[in-house]
């Protein structure tokens, strides 16, 4: 059946192809746009990196983890829509009025959902002390607790007097009469991280920094910082607003006759600005490099084939292969990661390779009238072999536990199948359009470019040298294999992209002005009741305080710093009242004898539900969540130096307090990086397995000797490319490995053709065209400002060049290094 199919006429094959392609297109349209969903849901693209590694296992343990992940996602989304602007000026009142004007105009921008400059409703100490006064004997700071529990009477008095003696301590003034033990004053006087730089002036939060007064403006956007299009639009509008305000304010002040013009400083930071900058840089580079790649590839194809049809055919083939790949994904999956599509660009290189093999065969071969009926007969086996070796490698990805691998495998396998089918069934139709002298006589082939001849001679010389020094070559190969142990991987996602210098400077300045910057890492505490949550968080706070005292952490913010659990409140009350009743505060009592020293016997706790309605509680509401029958609290961190220690704390607490709940350190960047590292390890095994699979396919067709050389050359190219990249970058990433897959696939393809046809000029022409097109399309990416992309381009560049140079070595094994069997046949035909 297959043999019959292969011998069908060109027109029949073309019709067959058209028919199947119509079916493919129909299926594709139905899968994406059919309201009846006959072929299932339309394929969704997911940009969430954390879903890359979802293995789909569903059990109780994972549901718990999934809930925590969902809560963490909500927190991240809420955080990414919050942004800060600081409006600074030498004169305070000018800064305030300018900030108000700016905020008014900012609120009119399309994506802004709220702007706040007036913070008069912020909790004042007098309100807070009134709120806590009914519970005055239940609130103790950690220091006070320590002194009462372990200190002598003298220590207690010393501590209390130092507090009493403080000048300008408002907490003392507000509470001393009603709470003369000074426990409440001490509780309210604590220095909490992140609250010191801003002061309330004229209902605005202001910080003095380097002679300027900076007014705090907070605003939130409707969409989070991940939406690329809206981020770019907003960022452009924002910057225009800032520039206009600077200009207008200068004009206004000069009109008012100010002798010294006042300069306003605008500093801003937020996720949306980073997203905008990254995407505009990415889009700019995509257009620039994409344009250069396209132009260069067009010129290359035009130069080699000198035919517009060749250009159209190649680009159409690539598009067709994408259609097949996308259809396969739509049929088998409902959602894929956008990263899968990005990694699957390797399909472009291989599909283009098929096209070049076919075009070279059609353009530069002299066909007799019988041969012209099956113009691709000579390369049919090669193309099939190429597909089998590449397919075997990609098929192994289907066995990986990661959905991303499976997506890449399905897309590439079916995409290449579509490319192969198109080349074998449709390309023969192009024969009359490709040959130069179309006089109905296809016997006259076009002349190959001179450089192909020149390159072929160079290759022959090179192969001769390798033959002469084969032991040295083997030693270098073994040396390269050994050197692979030195290679180190670093998949820290933060290194994949270098943030814009201006934005980084802004962020650092905001941090300096506010003397506070919460890190991206935080603790998420989970429990099934409010009190269990508070008790677990109290245990965490003890550990974090220790980290702060040893300067491993700059600070943290936790709800239990202001809302102790009921058990803690009881313990505090007992400790304080015992100290009073036992006369341990006698000295202070004699000093403040007129205060209210009455020991309250009844106990009424502060509860979360009432506390969150208080002025102070409202400020902490965002750190308290209820989701899926569990309570969650967020403990923010600042100045994290060692996440391993913090991770150890969360594990220790989770294991010893299993009945209470769970403590998790949320570090999204680190968890993605860890998963990418795991992904890299699997990918290395997949590459090795693909090499073995290709080896087996080669052995079945060409025997062991050819198979070993055919597989060794692309493998050697891959190793050299990775080693060279490691030397230049000092570490490798997963993007280097993905580049390795492309190098391996192209290398195996070249090996197949050299093995089938020997060191013939046509094979040289095809492989050099393929190598150059891969350089234009991929290697140009090494100019990108994004380190992840540039490292991919670098590895492709080095690998493709090396694999092109080394591929002819396989001809040593089948004795076709000087002239191919095929070219001998052609030569003998000419002589006839």
């Amino acid at each position, binding site marked *: 059946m297959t043999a019959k199919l292969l011998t069908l006429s060109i027109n029949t094959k073309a019709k067959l192809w058209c028919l199947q392609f119509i079916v493919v297109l129909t299926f594709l349209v139905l899968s994406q746009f059919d309201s009846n969903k006959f072929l299932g849901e339309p394929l969704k693209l997911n940009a969430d990196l954390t879903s890359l590694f979802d293995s789909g296992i569903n059990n109780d343990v994972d549901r718990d983890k999934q809930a925590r992940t969902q809560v963490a996602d909500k927190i991240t989304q809420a955080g990414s829509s919050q942004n800060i602007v600081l409006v600074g000026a030498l004169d*305070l009142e000018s800064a305030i009025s300018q900030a108000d004007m700016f905020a008014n105009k900012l609120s009119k921008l399309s994506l802004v959902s709220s702007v706040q400059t007036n913070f008069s409703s912020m909790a*004042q*100490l*007098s309100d807070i002390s009134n709120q806590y006064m009914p519970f005055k004997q239940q609130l103790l700071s950690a220091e006070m607790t320590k002194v009462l529990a372990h200190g002598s009477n*003298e*220590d207690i*008095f*010393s*501590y209390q*007097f*130092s507090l*009493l*003696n*403080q*000048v*300008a301590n*408002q907490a003392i*003034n507000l509470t*001393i*009469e009603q709470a003369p033990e000074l426990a409440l004053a001490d509780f309210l006087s604590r*220095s909490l991280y992140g*609250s*010191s*730089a801003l*002061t*309330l*002036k*004229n209902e605005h939060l202001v*910080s*003095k920094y380097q002679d300027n*007064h900076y007014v705090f403006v907070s605003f939130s956007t409707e969409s989070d910082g991940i939406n690329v299009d809206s981020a770019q639009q907003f960022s452009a509008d924002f910057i225009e607003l800032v520039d206009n305000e600077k200009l207008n304010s200068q004009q206004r002040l000069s009109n008012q006759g100010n002798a010294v013009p006042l300069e306003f400083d605008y500093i801003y930071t937020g996720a949306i600005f980073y997203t905008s900058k990254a995407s505009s840089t990415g889009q700019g580079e995509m257009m620039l490099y994409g344009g250069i790649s396209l132009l260069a590839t067009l010129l290359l194809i035009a130069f080699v084939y000198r035919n517009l049809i060749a250009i159209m055919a190649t680009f159409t083939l690539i598009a067709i292969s994408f259609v097949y790949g996308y259809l396969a994904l739509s049929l088998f999956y409902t959602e894929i990661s956008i990263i899968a599509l990005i990694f699957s660009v390797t399909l472009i290189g291989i599909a283009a390779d098929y096209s070049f093999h076919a075009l070279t065969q059609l353009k530069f071969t002299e066909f007799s009238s019988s041969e012209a009926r099956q113009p691709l007969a000579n390369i049919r086996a090669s193309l099939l072999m190429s597909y089998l070796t590449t397919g075997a490698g990609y098929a192994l990805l289907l066995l990986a536990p990661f959905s991303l691998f499976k997506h890449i495998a399905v897309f590439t396998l079916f995409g290449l199948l579509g490319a192969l089918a198109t080349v074998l069934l449709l390309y023969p139709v192009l024969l009359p359009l490709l040959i130069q002298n179309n006089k109905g006589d296809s016997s006259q082939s076009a002349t190959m470019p001179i450089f192909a001849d020149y390159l072929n001679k160079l290759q022959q010389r090179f192969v001769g040298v390798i033959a002469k020094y084969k032991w040295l070559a083997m030693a270098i190969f073994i040396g390269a294999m050994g050197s692979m142990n030195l290679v180190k991987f670093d998949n820290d996602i933060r290194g994949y992209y270098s943030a814009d210098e201006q934005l980084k400077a802004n962020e650092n300045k905001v941090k300096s002005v506010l*003397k506070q910057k919460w890190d991206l890492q935080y603790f998420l505490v989970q429990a099934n009741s409010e009190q269990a949550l508070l008790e677990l968080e109290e245990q965490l706070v003890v550990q974090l305080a220790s980290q702060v005292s040893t300067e491993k952490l700059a600070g943290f913010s936790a709800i239990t710093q202001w809302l102790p659990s009921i058990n803690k409140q009881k313990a505090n009350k007992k400790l304080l009242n015992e100290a009073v009743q036992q006369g341990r505060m006698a000295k202070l009592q004699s*000093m*403040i004898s*007129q*205060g209210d020293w009455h020991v309250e016997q009844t106990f009424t706790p502060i509860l979360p539900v009432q506390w969150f309605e208080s002025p102070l509680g409202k400020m902490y509401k965002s750190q308290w969540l209820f989701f899926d029958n569990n309570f969650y609290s967020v403990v923010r961190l600042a100045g994290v130096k060692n996440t391993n220690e913090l991770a150890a704390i969360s594990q220790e607490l989770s294991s010893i307090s299993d009945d209470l709940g769970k403590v998790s350190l949320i570090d999204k960047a680190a968890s993605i990086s860890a998963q990418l590292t795991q992904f890299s390890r699997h990918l290395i095994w997949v590459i090795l397995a693909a090499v073995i699979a290709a080896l087996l396919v080669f052995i079945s067709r060409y025997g062991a000797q050819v198979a070993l050389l055919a597989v060794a050359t692309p493998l050697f190219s891959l190793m050299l490319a990775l080693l060279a990249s490691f030397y230049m970058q000092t570490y490798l990433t997963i993007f280097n490995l993905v580049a390795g897959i492309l190098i391996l696939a192209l290398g195996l393809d070249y090996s197949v053709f050299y093995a089938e046809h020997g060191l013939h000029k046509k094979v040289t022409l095809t492989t050099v065209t393929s190598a150059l097109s891969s350089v234009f399309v991929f290697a140009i990416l090494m100019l990108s400002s994004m380190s992840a992309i540039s490292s991919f381009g670098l590895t492709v560049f080095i690998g493709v060049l090396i694999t092109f140079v080394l591929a002819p070595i396989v001809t040593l094994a089948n004795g076709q290094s000087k002239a191919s069997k095929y070219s001998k046949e052609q030569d003998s035909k000419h002589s006839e």
Partner: protein
Amino acid sequence: MILSSRSIYSSFIWVFLLVVSLLPSPSMAKEVVQALTQETLEPTNGTVSSANSLPSVRVTNLLEQLAINQGKGQFVQQKHFSFMSVPITSTGNFIVKGQSALWQTQQPVFSALLLTSDAIYRRLSLDDSYQLLTDSAEFSGILSTIFTGKVNADDWLLNSSIDSDCLELTPKSGQLKQLFQQVDLCLVSEAKANESAVKSSDDSQVQFRQITLTDSNGDKTVITMTLSSDIFLPSDSKALKRK
């Protein structure tokens, strides 16, 4: 009848002078009323009074005299609470140099406050290391004003009565207003300083000053400082370091 007409006449003069004194431009009457009443005119609506938009020569002179760039001495502090009949009294010594200051209480118990440019630290014994008390810019500013006499005009309205060596600071806005009604920085005579039982160990170049802080509840803290010497020892500089 004569008495009543005289009282009416005096009242009329007082009212007349008071009304005239409230006119925007400074006038002779204003100075007369100030001299008679010895009271500061309160600016309306929290705006800077004309006397403060351009500090007077008097205020400027006082600011210069009150500022301590480098010095050391003793202090007595008395905190008066309205519900208590006896003030809370403490004594100790201080060292000031530039932006840094050490405020060390010796009686009744030891404690030390170290003020630096970015934070305030505390320790309760000489054997302990300094612990961060607060890095609040506002609190640092207040203590800096008290310890070093350097006043931040952004935060305070400044005024001074005629023939007075006192600078009256009224908080302009925000959290300072919640803390204080007024702060008075005064250069005082030795006699007045002696009332507070502050004695200087070295009579050369001795300066006495008194700081009165009136908080929003009306409670007062009175600090009497004796600046004893301008000579700085290496040990004094060392004492201003955390470690």
